[in-house]
């Protein structure tokens, strides 16, 4: 996983590409530029952090096609689409393809900066959420099969007695399992446990 938030720029025009890099460099935003969508896809991976600024019209793969490829490969960073001659139809297509924002050239550089900052924040929040989720999933992965069975019953809001009856074990054993679940997941009460389980989703 990439830890530093990076702004990726994909534009076939070297002047525009370098211009965006210079602008972002002047406000201490890390950048990495690519002359084509293919070049970017070569380094792109699922866990990357940051945002992407991409031109719509490029030789080879277009910006919108790149969005489609990213979606197919599960790359979920925010994307700002820029174009020299956009219209409503193109904006709609870009948003449908998963773009976060749509900018027309020549754009106000402050507008670009704001959008990039917003995208980076979004990416950051997404990262935090993902990390929490992964941690939660990790905690649940330590549970034994029997503890998982007990957890499922707890999630169904069953009392210890009912769980013991369902699983054919003593109530005391259920309480031991419940204690171990709380200990392993680091939760103090059932409500925290349920929250963590929801956060972890299907993982684990």
């Amino acid at each position, binding site marked *: 996983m990439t830890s530093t938030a990076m702004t990726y720029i994909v534009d076939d*025009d070297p*002047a*525009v590409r*370098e*211009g*965006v890099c*210079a*602008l972002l*460099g*002047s*406000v201490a935003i890390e950048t990495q530029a690519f002359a084509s969508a293919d070049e970017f896809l070569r380094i792109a991976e699922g866990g990357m952090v940051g945002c992407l600024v991409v031109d719509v*019209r490029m*030789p*080879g793969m277009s910006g919108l096609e790149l969005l489609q490829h990213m979606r197919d490969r599960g790359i979920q960073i925010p994307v700002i689409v*820029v174009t*020299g*001659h956009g219209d409503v139809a193109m904006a709609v297509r870009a948003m449908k393809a998963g773009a976060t924002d749509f900018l027309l*050239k*020549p*754009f*106000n*550089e*402050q507008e*670009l900066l704001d959008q990039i900052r917003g995208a980076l924040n979004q990416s950051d929040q997404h990262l935090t959420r993902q990390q929490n989720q992964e941690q939660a999933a990790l905690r649940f992965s330590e549970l034994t099969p029997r503890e998982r069975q007990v957890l499922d019953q707890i999630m169904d809001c069953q009392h210890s007695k009912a769980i013991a009856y369902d699983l054919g074990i003593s109530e005391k054993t259920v309480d031991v399992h419940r204690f171990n679940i709380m200990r392993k997941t680091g939760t103090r009460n059932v409500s925290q446990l349920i929250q963590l389980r929801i956060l972890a989703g299907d993982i684990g």
Partner: protein
Amino acid sequence: MRMAIVSNDSVKARAGRRAKFSEGTLARIVRVDTRQVFRLTVLFSLWMLLALILLLAAQKWIASSPDLDNALLQQKAFWGGAILLLALAMSFGLAFSIARQHSLAMALEQAINTLPMQFAYIDDQRCYRFNNLAHQDSWADLNQDFSGRPVRESLGDEIYRQIEPYLERALAGERVDFELRLSGESVPSDLSVSYLPDIADGGQVKGLYVLCDDISKRKRVERRDKEQLLEFAELSRLASVGEVAAEIAHQINQPLAAIAMFSSAAQRTLADGGDQDKVRGWLETINGQSKRASDVIGSLRRFVRPGKLEPVALDLNAPLREVAALLTHHATARQVSLSLELEDRLPPVMAAGILIEQVAFNLLRAAIHSAADQATAGQVTIRSRADPERVWVEIISNGTAWGAYPDAEDRQSDEVSADACLGFSEAISRSIITGFDGQAGCRCHEGGTLCFFNLPRCEP
């Protein structure tokens, strides 16, 4: 100089004025063959001499006869009468022949007078010997018979100066055709003039026939056609620019966006006391990008500038480069790669640059669209070359013509009709090219299409 346009009405009006030519001015240029006159005179004299001898012999015979009787007298009278009848018949024959020739000359003159074309005869002394009514009507302000008067006096010094070189060439025995433009009081007139030398058997030029036609109407139509073609070309050019407006906007927006970002970065860096060398580099880039934007605007301005239709010696590579620059982004946006293969030191052709740009624009745009429709990567090549007679421009697309122009009728043929391939807007292209004595066409080429036009090389 005021001139009347010869029409059918004026031909009718002239019929009433025929009496003026009753003396037969055309007959004046009919030269009598002196040898024939001599032969006829000798023959006539011999006949007369023979008749005289016979008469004298008859008289002598009558006088010597001792017994003059009635029968003999009757015989002598018969012979005398026969000789007289013969002389009468010969005289009648001569008179008939002369009268017939005169009538023929009169009929010919009448026919020539009813012609709308001007006809005249000028002798080797540069004097009018004959002119038909149309010729005289053309110079209505003079309203006088030119016959027998010098050309300079009849037409005036100004016109004489214009025609004198041609007159001299015709009198030297050469057929001369030229066009004469007269500045009229209201509208200028154009004349097509032919001088046909009248050469005797010995090679001596006796004079010249003048054939003159008023082509003002035709010239006006030609000029109007040219003006309309220019207007059409202007409209077509503006429409073309409209079509690529989005691409041009993009071409201008790219450097503007770069300039905005570099300048903003420079401001921020300078405000923070950052690396000045870096800022200097950015300023250079800004300068380069402003030139880039200005080049795009310049090429657009050159393309839409009002131009002249008059052909000039032109290097075809120049309009091809202009058009390629204008359409580069149009091609890139359609994933079509554009390449130029222009022959160096191309011989010049006579053509109007703006019209050739329009033709190249239409062809190139069609080629790009055709190539863009292909499943494989689009490729368009612009090629120029010269052969000993013509300069060729070929635009090769790996797309098929009928893919882009589904109205092509014969899809099986290798030779695609230029009309079918080039479509409506390129019909202008063809008239522009043929207007400069060029040829335009289209054919299949290595699975794609090759559209070409050529123009004759300009003589050095």
